[in-house]
Each structure stands twice: as structure tokens, then as C-alpha cells.
């Protein structure tokens, strides 16, 4: 029997973009208000999980050809390495710095090294969640 999932497909295509936008918003807002790499990463992962649910695993993997185990490892590496980076500047392990820059279009913007750390956390979360979901679905 062929399942009619036209509506699911159509909705998913739009909703995924909303989720991804929310994820990036949460990620960036984490610097001063609730949010951050972990929450942003979870929301990001939920977008991927929705894609896997709406379409099948093979189709999604053709579009997003990453090995999510490696994504998780890359995230962990970025997070740990950003902590270690501080050591080379003579500061304590995991020290972070920030400064204000005048960027074109954006104007005066605060850039912080903690964003790099948070990006690592987000990637690690995405990689882990998607790996878990994929391993469970393979078992059934």
C-alpha cells in the first residue's frame, strides 16, 4: 500500500526552514540571553530528525552526505581546541575573550571567542542526536 504523505512532505519542506532559523536564532542569542550551543544544537538536530521522518533515510543522506559520527567528533574537537587555544595566549584553560568591531552593514558588533566553543557544542549535539536516532531506526 502506498502511503499518501503529500501533506507531510509539503509541510516539512517549509517547517524545516522555520526550525533551522529558530536554531540559528537560539544559537546566536545564547551569548546574553537564554539559548546557546546546546539548545541551538538540539533544535538543529530536530530539523534533521523531521527530515528523516518525512522522507526516508536514503533520500536525506543523498542531500546531506555527512557521517554524523564525524560531525559529533568535529564538534568535540572544536570545543576542546577552543579551550586549549586560550593556553597559547597565556590565559587559563577555557578562558574566553571578546571585543567590539566595526563591520560593514552590521555596524558595531560584539565578536566573542565563546561563539567558537558554542559552535563546537552545537555540532557535537547535532552529531550525537542524529547518530542515536539513526542507530535506533536501523535496529527496528
Amino acid at each position, binding site marked *: 500500500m502506498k502511503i499518501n504523505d503529500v501533506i507531510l512532505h509539503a509541510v516539512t519542506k517549509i517547517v524545516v526552514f522555520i526550525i533551522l532559523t529558530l536554531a540559528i536564532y537560539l544559537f546566536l542569542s545564547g551569548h546574553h540571553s537564554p539559548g546557546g550551543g546546546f539548545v541551538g544544537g538540539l533544535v538543529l538536530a530536530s530539523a534533521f530528525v523531521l527530515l528523516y521522518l518525512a522522507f526516508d533515510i536514503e533520500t536525506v543522506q543523498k542531500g546531506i552526505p555527512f557521517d554524523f559520527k*564525524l560531525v559529533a567528533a568535529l564538534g568535540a574537537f572544536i570545543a*576542546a581546541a577552543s579551550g*586549549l587555544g586560550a*593556553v597559547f595566549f597565556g590565559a587559563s*584553560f577555557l578562558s574566553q575573550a571578546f571585543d567590539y568591531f566595526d563591520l560593514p552593514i552590521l555596524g558595531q558588533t560584539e565578536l566573542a571567542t565563546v561563539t567558537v566553543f558554542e559552535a563546537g557544542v552545537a555540532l557535537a549535539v547535532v552529531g550525537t542526536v542524529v547518530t542515536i536516532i539513526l542507530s535506533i531506526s536501523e535496529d527496528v
Partner: protein
Amino acid sequence: MNNILVFPMVLPLITGVILIFLRPFIKLQRWVTFGVMAVNTGISLYILQKIQKDGILRLDFGGWEPPFGILFVGDSFSLLLVLTASIVTAIILLYAFHSLDAAREKMYFYPLVNFLVAGVIGSFLTGDLFNLFVFFEVMLLSSYALVSLGGSKMQLKHGIIYMTINVVSSWMFLIAIAYLYGTVGTLNLAHISQRIAESGQTPILTVISILFLIVFSLKAGLVLYQWLPGSYSAPPAVIGALFGALLTKVGIYALYRMFTLVFYHEPAITHTLIGIMAGVTLIGGSIGAIAYNDIRRVITYNVVIAVGFILVGLAVLTPAAVEGAVIYLVHDIIIKALLFLTGGTMIYLTGTARIENMSGLIRNYPMLGWIFFITMLSLAGVPPLSGFLGKVLVGQGAAETGSYLLLALAFLSSLAVLYSLLRIFLNAFWGETIISEEDEIPLKKGRLVPLVVFTLGTIALGLGVESIAVYASDAANVLLNPDIYIDAVMNDN
């Protein structure tokens, strides 16, 4: 600020992550992991020297001063354990190169070992209770993977038991932390200790301390060791050796830290309880070690006996006993690794784990026989091998405080250790040789060399015990005078 303090933990962590990308290159993975352990050994030796010179070291992560941030604290006790763990892991890895099957090596064995070591070392170094929980989890997650790596039926069965027990105990750990935070309002170990010293150890704090005692007893295998023999004997000998050498020691370390630094005001309740638990562990472990004919079971029950023995030192809490316990802890990490690897080698050579099916191995493999003999003497505490001084000092402490029952149990358990291993020796190495020369599986150098290195290690540690006794007595001094630790964390800059 002593950034050097974070390297023993962060080097294995980063290496483990990088090795995930280098999955197809097994040879590279092997030597990189070995190299990291060697570098770690050097770094921890350097830090240990620095501590003797400058006192306790501290690193505030991100520059957040205690009690607000998390931090690493390095004293002689932690660094002695970090050093031993690094050396022993390096040598166990040498054995892994020649004994582990390619399938397991390809399934992220080396990254997992790196993460395991990062968790173990992080637990030794952290000065923050919640951070301790995090590092316990890092260590446990890798051990879950390692215990079931390969997926044989035995491994999966015991893997599930192991995981369930540890998930439950981690949950209890978290609750205990929440209770303590709710009561004293801080998570920094030194700050907790300071606050408890100010307010006195009220009954509610004593109850919380007993919850911690239960949690760490589950992890260390004190009384609550029923999960241990199965899950340590199911995986291959290399993984068993890593677990036997490192994992229970982290639980023991946490018990020592908590009950000397934080909950030391009510020894009549807590330390008496620890004494009773240590006694029960000694009896239970001894019965187990004597009862089984399966080499792996005998070895894992020997782990249990050692846990009981080391905790006798915490129960009596005199300078001599604690110093002895620290020395014994170092000795035990080395000798348990050797014992697991020797047992694993015997099983590999004979194809059976039951001693009644082995006989006359000493004719086929004389070297292995002598290594086993020395291991046995060292475990029983025969001088001049490394188990001797630790046992004497712990015994001296027990005698000083008049805990004659514990003293008797501690030394009767040594007899049980000797008897259980002597039985293996008599059955497996003496008697009629049943393996003919044609059927003999050659004992490759790759397997023999790590065993020889460990054996030389136990002899060297026995003869040169004076060299680590300096550090051990400094460790005991800090453990028995919490003010030194608190002062270094809270006041020093």
C-alpha cells in the same frame, strides 16, 4: 594559574577525538595513543615534582576564581594516581597491539581508551563535585562501549548489568550532589568543607554523606561488588586489565577525597561504617576468590579483596595507614593490570579458563610461570615486592587504633589471595604437561614483553619504595589535614 595541570586530561581527550577521523589507520592510532600516554607520564612526573616544591597547584578554568568557577587541583595524591594510571595504560596498550582482534581495533578501541583515560584522570584532578560527576560519566560512557565492544553474548549480558547498575548509581550520585548543594550552597570541594567545618556536620549532612558512601561504594565495589566479577571478566583481557587497574580506583579515590576532605567530622558514624563495609568486602571477596575454578572469576574477586583492603586505611585514618593505603593503591593499579594480562595470556594459550583443564604449563612456558609466581607473591605482600610496605603500614595503622578485627581480616584476606592464586599455580603450572610440543601455541614476544615490564615494575617499586614513600607521605599529610587543601584552593592566588 597552572595550565600544565589540564594537559594530562585534555591530551587524551583531543587525541581521542582526532583518532575518530583516522579510523582506517590502525597502526597510527596505536602509536599515537601510546605516545600520548608516554607524554602524559612525563607531564605528571613534572607536575608531581612541582607540587613538592610549590605546594598544591590549582587551575581555575576560564579565570573564574573559586568558589565561583570550576577548577582542577593537583596534590600529591591525585598526581601519584595520574602518573601510575598513565604508565599502566601505556603498557596495557602494548599488550593490546598484539592481542586484540582487528574488528575490535577498528571499532574505535583506541579513541575509547583515550576517553576512558581522560575521564579517569579528570576525576583524579578535579576540585569540584559536579565536575567529578561529569568526569565519572565520561569514564563510564567509554567503559559501557568498551565492555560490550565486540558484541559476544557474554559481553552483552554483563554489559547490560553493568550499564544498569552504573546508570542507577549515577542517578543517586546526582541526587546526592543536589542534596549537598541544597544544604551548603556550593559545589567546590574545598568550599563545601569550609562551610561544613563552620556549621558543624549536622545529622542531615551525615545522612547525605552516607548517600555518597553508597554511590562511591557501588563504583568502587565496596560491599556492593556483585556486578563486578561478571562485567570485568566478560570482555577481552586487555579491557579487563584497564577496568581492573583503573575503574574501581576512581571510586576509591572519590571515597578517600570525600571522607577526608569533606565528611571527616563524624568518624564514629561514617568511618566506622566504612570499616564494617571494608571488613565485609574482605570476607566476601576472599570467599569468592577461593570458591571459583574459573581463572577470570578468581582474578576479579582479587580486585574486590584489594578494594576492601585499601578502604581499611580510610576506616582507621592514621597517618601510617593512609600513607600505606596510598602506596598500596599505586601498587594495586600495577599488579591488577599484570594479573589480568597474565590470566588472559593463560586463557589464550590453553583455550580454557578453568584451572582443572590446565596442567604443567611451566614446561611449555617457563617465563609465564615465573611471572605468575612473582605476581602471586607481590599480591600476597611478600617482601621485597611492591605489596609489602603498603600492607605493613595499613596493618600498623589498624593496630595503633586497636582495630584488631580489621587487622585480622586484612591479613587473613592476604592468605586468601595467596591461597586462591597458589591453587591456580599448582593446577595450571605444575603437574603433568598435557600440551604436546606440536600443539603448543607460541607465546609471542609482543604478549610477553608487557608482562615482563609489569613484573620488573612490581620488583622495582618494591625495592625502590622509598622513592615514592616521600610522595605518599605528603599525600597522606594533605589528606589528614584538610586545611592545607582548603588553604591552597580558597586563599592562594
